[in-house]
């Protein structure tokens, strides 16, 4: 290697080998990094491993639920990224602005459905214009304007639950159908 030209080929090959090893090391590092990630994230580890991990995670969740006293009961609540747990149904109570009753937040939506639709029926009453729009959009099909009609009997094609009031609106729709 002390020679200039004579050693050039061997030093060339030495250099090549060194370069090759460097490339190889970098690829080895890539593979190791990816396998490390797979191992840590628990991906692709075979089914028996996953069952074991499921068991372990169950135990972990149980043991995490015990010391953590966020007021939650049991270990069915999941923990969010801030470490807080939330009950399955939101339990803050406030007043409905429609009827003024104290309502649980998690039950507010179904309550509003009934509450705002109430007068007489469990469902929203349709106005004439919305019914006409509906029949216009669906030509040929019966005008089923929110057939809740819990107490009404449906006639063959036109469910115009005239029983129970607000009859004028529905009878107008009845004209639209046939």
């Amino acid at each position: 290697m002390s020679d200039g030209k004579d050693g050039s080929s061997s030093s060339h090959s030495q250099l090549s080998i060194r370069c090759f090893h460097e490339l190889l090391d970098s690829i080895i590092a890539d593979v190791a990094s990816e396998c490390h990630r797979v191992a840590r994230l628990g991906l692709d580890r075979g089914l028996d491993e996953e069952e074991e991990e499921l068991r372990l995670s169950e135990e972990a969740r149980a043991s995490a639920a015990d010391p953590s006293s966020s007021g939650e009961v049991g270990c069915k609540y999941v923990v969010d990224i801030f470490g807080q747990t939330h009950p399955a149904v939101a339990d803050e109570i406030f007043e409905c602005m429609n009827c003024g009753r104290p309502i649980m937040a998690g039950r507010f939506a179904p309550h509003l459905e009934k509450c705002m639709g109430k007068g007489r029926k469990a469902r929203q009453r349709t106005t004439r214009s919305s019914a006409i729009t509906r029949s216009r959009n669906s030509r040929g099909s019966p005008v089923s304007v929110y057939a809740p009609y819990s107490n009404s009997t449906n006639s063959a094609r036109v469910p115009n639950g005239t029983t129970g009031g607000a009859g004028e609106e529905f009878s107008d729709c009845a004209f639209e159908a046939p």
Partner: protein
Amino acid sequence: MRASINRPPTPDADEEPEREPALVEVINVKMVESGEKEKLKELLRERLIECGWRDEMKALCRAYARKKGRNNVTIDELVQVITPKGRASIPDSVKTELLQRIQSFLTSIVL
């Protein structure tokens, strides 16, 4: 003074071995600049995937991680696990092809 204990021997003492690492650096820089290094790396990666070398290495890693517990492995450990077997199990054809390409690159930039 020159004889600081932390300093490597001055270049006057060993000239030839000093030059070689520097040459490697130059080669490295040229390879990176011209984009050849990336091409070679991609070529090597492709060949190793084709011949199943990569899958072998991944299997080794998986076995090691399973043995050690998957949360206890570090990347360094995996590298150490793979490297001896990895270097040894490179197919000759792949090695030859890469070496040829590197050498042709070297001659192209030296001349």
